[in-house]
C-alpha cells in the first residue's frame, strides 16, 4: 500500500529531527517537538524535495503544528497535479 501524504510528511520530519515516528501526532506543535526556526528551514527544504513542490515563505510562517503542515502539503500537491495534467491540450 502506498504511503499517504500525512505518513510521508511525518516520516520526513521524524527522519530530519531524529525523532521516533510514533512520537509524532498530527496535533503536535513544533514547539512541543523542540523544532526551532532553523529546524523548520531544514524540514521545509526536505519536504520541498520529497514532494517536488515550492513552499512559500509567508505561508510556511503561519504553520505551527503538524496537522497544518500536512494540510498545506496536501494543498500544494493537489495544485501541482492540477497544473500539470497528464494529457497535453
Amino acid at each position: 500500500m502506498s504511503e499517504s501524504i500525512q505518513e510521508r510528511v511525518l516520516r520526513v520530519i521524524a527522519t530530519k529531527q531524529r525523532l521516533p515516528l510514533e512520537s509524532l501526532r498530527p496535533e503536535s506543535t513544533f514547539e512541543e517537538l523542540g523544532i526551532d526556526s532553523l529546524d523548520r528551514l531544514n524540514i521545509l527544504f526536505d519536504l520541498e524535495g520529497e514532494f517536488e513542490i515550492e513552499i512559500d515563505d509567508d505561508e510556511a510562517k503561519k504553520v505551527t503544528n503538524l496537522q497544518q503542515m500536512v494540510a498545506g502539503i496536501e494543498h500544494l500537491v493537489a495544485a501541482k497535479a492540477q497544473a500539470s495534467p497528464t494529457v497535453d491540450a
Partner: protein
Amino acid sequence: MRRVVITGMGVVSASGRNQGEFWRQLSSGISAIDTISSVDPWQLRFKNAAEVRGYDPESEFPAKDLMFLDRFAQFALISANEAVSQAGVEWRQEVRERGAVVTGSCLGGRGAEEAGYWELFHHNRTRVHPLTIPLSMSNAGASHISMRYGIQGPVYTVSTACSSSAHAIGQAFWMVRAGIAPLAIAGGSEAPIFLGGLKAWEAMRVISKDTCRPFSADRSGLILGEGGAMLVLELLDDAIARGAQPLAEIVGFGMSSDADHITQPSSDGAARAMRNAIEDSGMAVEQFGYINAHGTGTLANDRTETAGIRAVFGSHADKLAVSSTKSMHGHALGAAGALEAVASVLSLRHGILPPTANYTTPDPECDLDVLPNEAKKAEVEACLSNSFAFGGLNAVLAFKAWR
C-alpha cells in the same frame, strides 16, 4: 586617553558611488532597491536587491589590474581611494611602516570562486583559473589597499558575517588609540550578488519578496545589497598638526557574543555590545541622540534590537532617533557596518538624520522614533552604529560630532 578622528571617507553603494551622492540619496530618503539585473531573477524566489548600478570596472582600473580584482576587492580599493584623497594623507615614513588596514568581508571573492567552479561542474573543464585563490581570498581587499599605498603595518581582514566591517573599524580605532598604528584605513566591502550566494540566502527564507521595511509592522525580511566603504582614522593631534579637517570623532567600540543561537538574535547580546561601546566612549547615555540601527527588516532583528535599545537607554530611548539606512542601500553584509559608519558620521556632520525608508505601519514591538520616510534636522552630539551578525556576534561603534 588619545583621541581618534575620521579625516576621510569613501563609498561605493547602490545609493551612489561616492560620498556626496550617497549622502544626497540617504538624506532624501531615496531607496536604491530595485529588480536584480546581474543575475536572471527567474531562477530566484525573490526579485529585488540593492545593486551598484552604472558601474564600469574598466573605467576605474587598468585591464592588467582588473585581472587580479574580484568585484568585492574593486569596491574596497575605490572606496579607500576616495577616503585617502579626502583625508589628504601625508605618507610619512612612519605612516607607511606602521600604518594599518583592517577590512571586513563576509563572503570575500566567492563570486570569483563560483565562476571557477561553474566551469568545472558545468563545462567539464578539468582546470580552474589560476587566479581563483588570490581573487577569492577574503583579505584581497586589504592586501590591495596595502599594496596601492605601501602600507606595511598591521593589515588584516575580519569576517564576522554582518558585523565584519564594524568589527574591522573598531579594531582599527583601538589600534590607533593605543598607539600601535599612527593611521588606519578601515571598513569593508561585499559583492554577494551571484547565483549560488543568492540561492543560499533564498533557502534561509529571510529575504523579502517585497522591499526592506525596517521596524514597519508589514516588514517581511531583508534585501541584499553590495558595495564598500572605507574610513581614514588618525590621532586628533596628528590631524590638527597637519591641518586636516576632522569629520567626526570615533569615541567608542563595543563587542559581545550572544553565545546562544546560530541565527536567532538576542536582545541581551545586542544590549551588552551597545553598553560596552558607550562605556568605552566615556559618555553618558543622555549624550546620544541617534542610532543608525542594524535594522535588517526581519521580524526577529527589529523586535530584539528595539528591546535591546530600550534596555540600554531606559527612558532616554523615547528621546532617541533611530533609523535603518538598509532600507535604502540594502544589507551589504560584511560592508554594512562600514556603509552605516559613513552614514552615521555624515549625519553628525550635516545635522540631518537619514530616515527609515519604505515604512508604512507602526509595530508595537518596534515602538521607537524610527524616522519614517523623512529625514530629520537635528544636531545631535553623538550617535551609535549597530551591527549584529548571524552567529550572534555583535559590534557597536560610537561617534561624536566634531564642531
